[in-house]
C-alpha cells in the first residue's frame, strides 16, 4: 500500500531521461504525501460508516422490500419508531411499565437528588455558558428518562413490569461494567504486589479476552446445565436438580452477565495493572515511612494515579458493551421469550422478520442512547478525570 517513492540510488541506475521523469513524479508524490497518507482511511470510513449511517437514518423512516431485480422503497414516516416504542411485545423495546415499588421510588429519588446536586454544584461554580446549560439540561433530561424507564420496568412490586431490549441492554452495560471494574481492580491490586509467580497469573487472566464470545456462550451453557454440567453436585446439595437457568428471565440474564464478566474482567485487569505499575514509587514509600495506613495509601496516592486509566477503560468497555449480541443470542437465544434480548439482537430479529425499517429504527435508538451515554461520560467523567 505504501507507494515508496524512488530513492536516489534507484534514480541513478535509470537512464538520464527516465531518471528525470521519475524524479518529477517523485517530487509530485512528495508534495501530495500528506494527502496520500490520510485519504485511504478517510474514504473507507466515509463509504462504510458515514454514508451507511445516513442511509440507515433514512431507512428508519421508510419501508424497504427486496423485490426481484431491485429494491422497493417507500416513505413510512415515524411509523417505524411508533411501532418499536409502543407496538406489540415482539417488536417493542421499552418493555412493560408499571408503578414502581417503594425501593424503585427511593432509587429514582436518589437519581433525582444526584442530578440536582450535579446541577447545583455547576451553578455555584458560576461559569454558566448557554452551550454548557443546554448540554447539562439534555444530560439531566436523558438520565431522568432512562432512570424512570429502569425503575418502572425493573423495580415494580406487582410483577407486571418487564424490561424490554433497551432496559436489558442498559443492565448488561452498567451492571456488567460495574462488576468487571470491581473484580479487575481487586485482581490488579493483588497481582501488582511482588509475589513469586506473578507472570503466571498475568498470562492466565488474559485468556478469556481472546476467546470468541460465541465460544464463551457455549461454554457457559455447558456449565449452567444442572443435570449434565460439572457443577451438578453443587446443584444437588442446593436442591436445584431440575432447575434450568435459561427458563427464568432473571437467571437467564444473570447467565449472560456472568459470561460477559468472565470474558471482559481481564481487560480491566490488564490495563489497571499497567497503570499501577506505572505509578511513581516515592510517594508510597514516603507515606509508609510517615505511618500512613494501607487504606490511606490507596485512597490518597494510588487511586488518584489510576483514575485516568480507569475512566478510559470504563469508556472503552461502555462503547463495546452496548454492542453485545453474540452472548445472549447463543447462550439463551434471547429467551425465555424476549427476556435476554439486547438492542442489537432485537434489531437483528426484526431484520430477520423482514421488517427492515423497524430494524433500522431499533438500531438508531441504540445509537442515540449509546452516543448519549458515552458523550455524557466523556464530558462529565472522563474529561475531568484525565485533565486532573
Amino acid at each position: 500500500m505504501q507507494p515508496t517513492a524512488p530513492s536516489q540510488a534507484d534514480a541513478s541506475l535509470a537512464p538520464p531521461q527516465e531518471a528525470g521523469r521519475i524524479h518529477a513524479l517523485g517530487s509530485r508524490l512528495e508534495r501530495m504525501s500528506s494527502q496520500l497518507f490520510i485519504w485511504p482511511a478517510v474514504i473507507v470510513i466515509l463509504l462504510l460508516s458515514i454514508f451507511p449511517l445516513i442511509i440507515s437514518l433514512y431507512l428508519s423512516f421508510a419501508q424497504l422490500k427486496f423485490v426481484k431485480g431491485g429494491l422497493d422503497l417507500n416513505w413510512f414516516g415515524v411509523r417505524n419508531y411508533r411501532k418499536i416504542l409502543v407496538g406489540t411485545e415482539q417488536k417493542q423495546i421499552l418493555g412493560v411499565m408499571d408503578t414502581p415499588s417503594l425501593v424503585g421510588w427511593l432509587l429514582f429519588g436518589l437519581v433525582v437528588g444526584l442530578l440536582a446536586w450535579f446541577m447545583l454544584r455547576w451553578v455555584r461554580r458560576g461559569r454558566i455558558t448557554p452551550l454548557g446549560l443546554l448540554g447539562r439540561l439534555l444530560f439531566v433530561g436523558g438520565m431522568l428518562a432512562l432512570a424512570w424507564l429502569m425503575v418502572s420496568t425493573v423495580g415494580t412490586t406487582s410483577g407486571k413490569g418487564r424490561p424490554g431490549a433497551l432496559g436489558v441492554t442498559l443492565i448488561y452495560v452498567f451492571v456488567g461494567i460495574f462488576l468487571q471494574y470491581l473484580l479487575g481492580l481487586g485482581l490488579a491490586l493483588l497481582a501488582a504486589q511482588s509475589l513469586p509467580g506473578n507472570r503466571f497469573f498475568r498470562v492466565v487472566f488474559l485468556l478469556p479476552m481472546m476467546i470468541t464470545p460465541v465460544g464463551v456462550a457455549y461454554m457457559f451453557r455447558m456449565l449452567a446445565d444442572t443435570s449434565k454440567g460439572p457443577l451438578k453436585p453443587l446443584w444437588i446439595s442446593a436442591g436445584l436438580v431440575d432447575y434450568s437457568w435459561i427458563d427464568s428471565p432473571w437467571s437467564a440474564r444473570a447467565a449472560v452477565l456472568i459470561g460477559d464478566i468472565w470474558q471482559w474482567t481481564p481487560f480491566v485487569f490488564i490495563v489497571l495493572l499497567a497503570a499501577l505499575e506505572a505509578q511513581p514509587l516515592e510517594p508510597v514509600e514516603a507515606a509508609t515511612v510517615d505511618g500512613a495506613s494501607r487504606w490511606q495509601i490507596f485512597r490518597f496516592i494510588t487511586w488518584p494515579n489510576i483514575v485516568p486509566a480507569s475512566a478510559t477503560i470504563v469508556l472503552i468497555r461502555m462503547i463495546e458493551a452496548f454492542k453485545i449480541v453474540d452472548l445472549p443470542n447463543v447462550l439463551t437465544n434471547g429467551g425465555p421469550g424476549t427476556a435476554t434480548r439486547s438492542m442489537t439482537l432485537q434489531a437483528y430479529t426484526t431484520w430477520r422478520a423482514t421488517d427492515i425499517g423497524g430494524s433500522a429504527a431499533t438500531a438508531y435508538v441504540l445509537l442515540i442512547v449509546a452516543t448519549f451515554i458515552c458523550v455524557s461520560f466523556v464530558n462529565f467523567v472522563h474529561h475531568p478525570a484525565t485533565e486532573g
Partner: protein
Amino acid sequence: MQSFFKRRSIWQPSPAGMLVSYVLLGAWTLVVLFPLYWLFITSFKLPIHVNDGPVYLPFVDFQPSLHAWQYIFVDVRNDTMRPYLNTIIVGLSSSLIALTLGSTAAYALTRFDFRPKLGAIGLFVGCVILAIIAVALGVPWQVALISAAVIFGLLLQTLGRRMKASLGNDDIAFWMISQRILPPIATVIPIYVMFQQLNLLDTHVALITTYVAANLPIVVWLMRDYFRNIPLELEECAAIDGASRFRTFWSIVLPLSTPGLVATFLFVLVFAWNEYLLALFLSLSDVQTMPLTVAAQNATRGPQWWYMSVLILIMIIPVIGMAIALERYISKGLLVGAVKG
C-alpha cells in the same frame, strides 16, 4: 508469630497477606481455567459420558476417545476446513489492510497539519443527503451519485474560496476514532444493500472491507499514541539526507514502532477472528466464518457438546497461543494509550 503478619517491605506483603493473595488469585485462576478445562475434556468424551451426568477426570472417570476429533476432521472435513480457511483469510487480510491504512493515517495526523474547511464538509454532507433524497424519489442511484458529485465539485470551486472556518488534526482524529461508538447494527443494513447491489454479498471482499472499516478506529487510536512518542529528530535527519516522506515512514518510523504494530495487529486480528454480527449479515454460506459455524451447531445438531467443544477449541487455540507469546506486548505496548488517557 508476629513476623507472620509483618510486611517484608513496602511492595512485598507479610506471609499472611501473601497467603491471602495467593488464595484469591488462585480462586480467579480456577474461575478462568475451569471452563477451558471442561471444554477440553468434553472434546474427548463419548456422548454417554456427557449424557449420564458429569465425569471430571480423563483416564480415571472415563476413557478419553478421539471420536469427536475424528468426526470433525475426517467425516465432515470440508464443513470444518472451509469456514476455518475463510476465517483465516478474512481475519489476516482485513487486519493487515486496517493496519496499513490506519497507521498511515495515524502517522499523517501526528506529522502533518490538516485544515479541512468546515464549509466544504457541510457542502459534502448536503450533497450526500441530496443524493439520498433523489434516490428515494426514484432517480436511479448511478445518476443521483454522479449529479451529486458534479454539484459538489461545482459549488466547491465557486464557493470554496470564501470559506474561512476550518478544523484541525485533533478533530479529524476524533472523527475517526469516534466511529467505534457506532453500533455495527446501525450501519450494516445499508452495507448489506450496497453489497447486494454490487453482487458482492457472500464474498471475501464484502467481509474484508467491512472489517477494515470496523477496525480502523482502533488502529488510528493506538498508533497515533505510538507515533507521538517517537522522537522527531530521526525523521528530520532522514529528511535532510534526502529521503522522501514515504521512505522515512517505511524504513524509519515503522521499524521503530514494531511493538505497537504487533500489539495493534493482534488486537485487531482477535476482533476480526471473533466477529459475529457483521458476518451474520454479510455471509450466507460460501464465506461463512468460524463464529457462525460454531453458533449454528446448536440448530443443526442439537446440543452435541463433544463436537462443539472440538470446534471451539480449534478456534481459540491459535489466538490463545498468540496471547501467551505476546503477553508482554499486550500489557506494555498496546495499553500505553489507555493508561495515559
